[in-house]
């Protein structure tokens, strides 16, 4: 693991290089670089599109009626209760809270599945007769929301842990880092499921929290190594010497100065988070039915593989494109902010 | 000195084609290296010394390219152009192919010692292994013979206990020791010419002295010619027979070493000499060269040194002086590219003196001849 860490703190070679990094992390500079970088630009387009769809789905209560001439059960007129909606038909194959996820081995004969391609149902309907396109569109919201919120939780937790560990050093550092290592050692998906089920009882909010906690170690390590390099700088020494409180030194000087590279990393991490959440939902521990969620839609579709292939394709494509957007954007951002890579 | 040079470089031009424009890193230099002599290639960082020396092996990295000139080595053509039937320049038929350059020239005819001994050795192979590989490749020896040769060579360059150190890795060697290994590498391939690209720049002064003494001694023993690339005129004085001073891709002065020091003909060389510490002068006498060297992407008009030149006159802005013979040192020519010499006759004496250009003065003082690392 020693190697992994040394790769993270590379900006410490020379004071001159660090100054240069700082100078280049201006917003205007970044925007200019992103404009130039094709990867970042495309990433930005995709992310913007996905965000637009997510917000649109959240705001427009008439989405389905206006688009498809049919009123949907899912109206997101009220922004807040994002994950709870009245339902018309409990879909087969989707369990209630504590029921196991459903993997039917044989075909379910009772449900005729209309294929897509009609104006009314461009992507067809799901086994319960609900418009698939609308569900995919609403699914954006869950994925993006969960991705961003849990990454933020991980980032916040990681910042606190990393900053405290890095700033105080010594035993505090040792103890916190052992804890971080421990959490890191349990495969995230496993940790999140155990947390969600045993602590929260298969509720999406606990899943969000669990994902956040599982990614605290990742951010804690980056922040810590940044803090370690910043801690030794003159102005921090000066602040300390002039009697500024530790907490203020961390909050006002150390954290802001270590944030830029971490934000880039967070963008990439959103992709990872959405990936994990998709898996979580696929197993039945993400958003609960009837809320449309891509992973969970794939779970349902798994039982209809022989009758309608496309049910399994669309949600997967949606997941892939969304994550790809965040990855492209994050990659581009990284290139734009990294002065060492010149093209 | 024999009449036929070992290496002859004629009007060599190497350019880098970048997004921001064409960098004329080496812009028409000519020089010779005779058998058994050490030729200095001196200049500030960015003067094009390293690019010039890498061009000799046709090892210029993309986006760089040799665009003009002729390089002949022992009668073979390393690079040369001719005019094709359609009027375009094309490579001559007698130019060595890439494969021939690799197998017949690199290593076994012309070897290199790089600037940074820390980075030049591969960290994951043993020192001996790397040495042996190059010996095997360039001298066609068997593995066992190459190994014996490698150990001998390590001993020759003053590495104690070479049998044991043969199996050690680069990180177990100090900087000076690694540079000795690189010298051993160069000599072990038994080349006729060694290009030493700032071989002592990264070393401590005391170690630098040892390395220079070692090279001097071995050079006399093996009779190998050297091209010694450096920014340090002190080293040049100590080791070189003849010197080429480079400024912004051009050779501005060319003379036997004593001539250069005692009868300097170019203001830039003068300035370089004034900026190095010498035992006969106090530190207060040191005069850094005013300003910084401009970029080779858009060199100044006329004489490229004129914006920083204390002797600059109006004519220097207009007239670009080529390197011309301005004096004789015995039977050897002393060339300089400065219009103040009579050989040029462009009206220097009547021309108005000009002040050094202000924008280049912003950084004045920071650029002495010592430019630190050299990465063109």
């Amino acid at each position, binding site marked *: *693991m*020693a*190697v*992994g860490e040394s790769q993270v703190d590379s900006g410490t070679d020379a004071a001159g290089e660090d100054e240069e990094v700082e100078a280049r992390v201006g917003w205007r500079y970044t925007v200019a670089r992103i404009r130039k970088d094709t990867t970042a630009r495309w990433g930005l387009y995709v992310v913007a599109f996905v965000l637009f769809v997510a917000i649109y789905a959240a705001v427009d209560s008439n989405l389905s009626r206006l688009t498809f001439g049919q009123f949907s059960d899912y109206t997101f007129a009220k922004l807040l209760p994002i994950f709870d909606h009245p339902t018309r038909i409990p879909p087969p194959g989707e369990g209630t809270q*504590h029921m*196991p*996820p459903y*993997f039917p081995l044989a075909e379910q004969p009772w449900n005729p599945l209309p294929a897509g391609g009609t104006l009314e149902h461009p992507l067809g309907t799901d086994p319960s007769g609900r418009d698939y396109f609308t569900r995919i569109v609403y699914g954006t919201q869950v994925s993006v929301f969960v991705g961003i919120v849990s990454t933020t939780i991980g980032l916040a937790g990681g910042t606190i842990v990393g900053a405290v560990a890095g700033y105080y050093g010594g035993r505090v550092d040792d103890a916190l880092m*052992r804890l971080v*290592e*421990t959490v890191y*050692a*349990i*495969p*995230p*998906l*496993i*940790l999140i*499921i155990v*947390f969600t089920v*045993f*602590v929260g009882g298969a509720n999406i909010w606990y899943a969000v929290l669990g994902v956040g906690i599982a990614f605290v170690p990742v951010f804690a390590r980056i922040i810590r190594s940044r803090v370690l390099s910043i801690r030794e700088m003159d102005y921090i020494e000066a602040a300390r010497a002039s009697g500024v409180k530790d907490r203020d030194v961390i909050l006002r000087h150390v954290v802001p100065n270590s944030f830029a590279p971490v934000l880039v990393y967070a963008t990439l991490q959103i*992709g990872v988070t959405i*990936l994990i959440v*998709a*898996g979580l939902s*696929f*197993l039945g521990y993400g958003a609960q039915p009837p809320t449309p969620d891509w*992973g969970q839609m*794939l779970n349902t*579709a798994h039982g209809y*593989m022989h009758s309608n*292939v496309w049910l*399994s*394709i669309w949600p*997967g494509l949606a*997941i*892939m494109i969304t994550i*790809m957007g965040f*990855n492209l954007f994050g990659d581009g951002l990284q290139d734009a902010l990294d002065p060492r890579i010149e093209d | 000195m024999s009449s036929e040079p070992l290496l002859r470089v004629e009007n060599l031009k190497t350019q880098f084609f970048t997004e921001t424009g064409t960098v004329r890193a080496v812009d028409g230099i000519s020089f010779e290296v005779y058998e058994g002599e050490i030729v200095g290639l001196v200049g500030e960082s960015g003067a094009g010394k390293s690019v010039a020396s890498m061009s000799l092996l046709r*090892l210029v990295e993309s986006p760089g390219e040799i665009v003009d000139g002729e390089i002949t080595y022992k009668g073979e053509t390393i690079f040369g152009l001719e005019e094709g039937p359609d009027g375009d320049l094309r490579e001559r038929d007698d130019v060595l192919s890439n494969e021939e350059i*690799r197998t017949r020239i*690199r*290593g076994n005819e012309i*070897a*290199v010692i*790089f600037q940074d001994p820390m980075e*030049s*050795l*591969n*960290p*994951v192979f*043993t020192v001996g292994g790397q040495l042996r590989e190059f010996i095997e*490749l*360039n001298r066609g020896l068997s593995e066992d013979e190459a190994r014996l040769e490698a150990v001998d060579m390590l001993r020759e360059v003053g590495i104690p206990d070479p049998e044991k150190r043969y199996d050690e*890795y680069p*990180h177990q060697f100090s900087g000076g020791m690694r540079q000795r290994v*690189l010298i051993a*590498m160069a000599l072990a*391939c038994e080349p006729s010419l060694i290009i030493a690209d700032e071989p002592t720049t990264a070393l401590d002064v005391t170690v630098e002295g040892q390395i220079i003494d070692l090279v001097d001694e071995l050079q006399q023993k093996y009779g190998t010619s050297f091209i010694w690339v450096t920014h340090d005129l002190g080293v040049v004085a100590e080791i070189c027979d003849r010197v080429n001073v480079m400024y912004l891709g051009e050779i501005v002065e060319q003379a036997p070493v004593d001539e250069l020091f005692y009868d300097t003909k170019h203001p830039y060389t003068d300035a370089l000499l004034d900026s190095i510490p010498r035992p006969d002068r106090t530190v207060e006498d040191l005069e850094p060269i005013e300003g910084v060297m401009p970029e080779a992407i858009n060199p100044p008009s006329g004489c490229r040194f004129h914006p920083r030149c204390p002797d600059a006159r109006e004519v220097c802005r207009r007239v670009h002086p080529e390197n011309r013979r301005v004096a004789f040192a015995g039977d050897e020519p002393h060339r300089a590219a400065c219009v103040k010499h009579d050989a040029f006759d462009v009206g220097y004496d009547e021309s108005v003196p000009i002040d050094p250009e202000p924008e280049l003065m912003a950084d004045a003082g920071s650029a002495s001849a010592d430019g630190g690392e050299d990465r063109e």
Partner: protein
Amino acid sequence: MKLLKYALFRLLQAIPVLIGISIITFLLANLGPGDPVSLMLQGQEHDEELVRAIEQRYGLDKPLHERYVTYMAGLLQGDFGQSIYYQRPVSDLMMDRIGPTLLLVLSAYAFALVTAIPLGVVAANRRNEPTDHLSRIVALVGVSTPSFWIGIVLILIFAVKLGWLPSSGLVYPWRPPDAYRGIDGHLELFQQTIRHLLLPMIALGTLQMATIMRVERTQMIESLQGEYVKLARAYGVPERTILRKHAFQVAQLPIITIVGLNLSTALGGAVLTETVFNINGMGLLFVNAIQRNDYQLVMGVTIVLGTLFVIGVIITDISYAYVDPRVTYGESE
């Protein structure tokens, strides 16, 4: 000898982490608001007496720390307790299931390394040429696609549409051929193992392939710009040897680290892959345990998977120390 000492040192270093894993797992499984007994009796009529009887049987009436000590004492003797649902020792269950998971994860890594390294090297060597673009697209898609969906798509194409490969289950090469109906001899057993393993291996291995390829590419680009490569060129070493030996060896070092650290994603991915392909490994066991609220089993599987990760990282650390001469043994970070 030095290496052995280093290995021992790393193992000792891992002990606190292993203890930490057991504590976290134990707390998560026992502290939550959903207490094991009511979860076990979910949906059933139950009275106080039944609850108390169950509590007594599983030692749930004792205070938490006491229960942890008992649990740990068991762990040290290889006793992971009794599975509530299967009514069998957790360790027995895991012994049956760990083989398929290791087979799956290791073959996924084999697939990833065999495809990613050559592609990464070629991409780095021919930068900004079609191969490079292709490899970057593959890498981007690879890191952006959920493994279980890749599995589903593979099943749709190769099992449902083309009918070439089986869509579920695994044939274990370590079992005698006559344990399977219709399999004749060891050769066929091996063939069947491969046929069954192919799709899940690709599904699980794609993410690893993508990450390894990215690292391989950047490392090779960096390595090819190294001074030692320039030196080798200047001494007439053929370009092919430089690529395959001089630049290559240096670039492989970070790959070793990546392989170790990625084990946690791979083990998590195994849970999903085993679910999609219905492979009876640790992952499916975990899913079943979670569904049945079999907290003993969940703890066991979690601790074992965490331990597998720790062991994996130690193994890669040791390999790194073995391969990279610059690592000085016995020194911590």
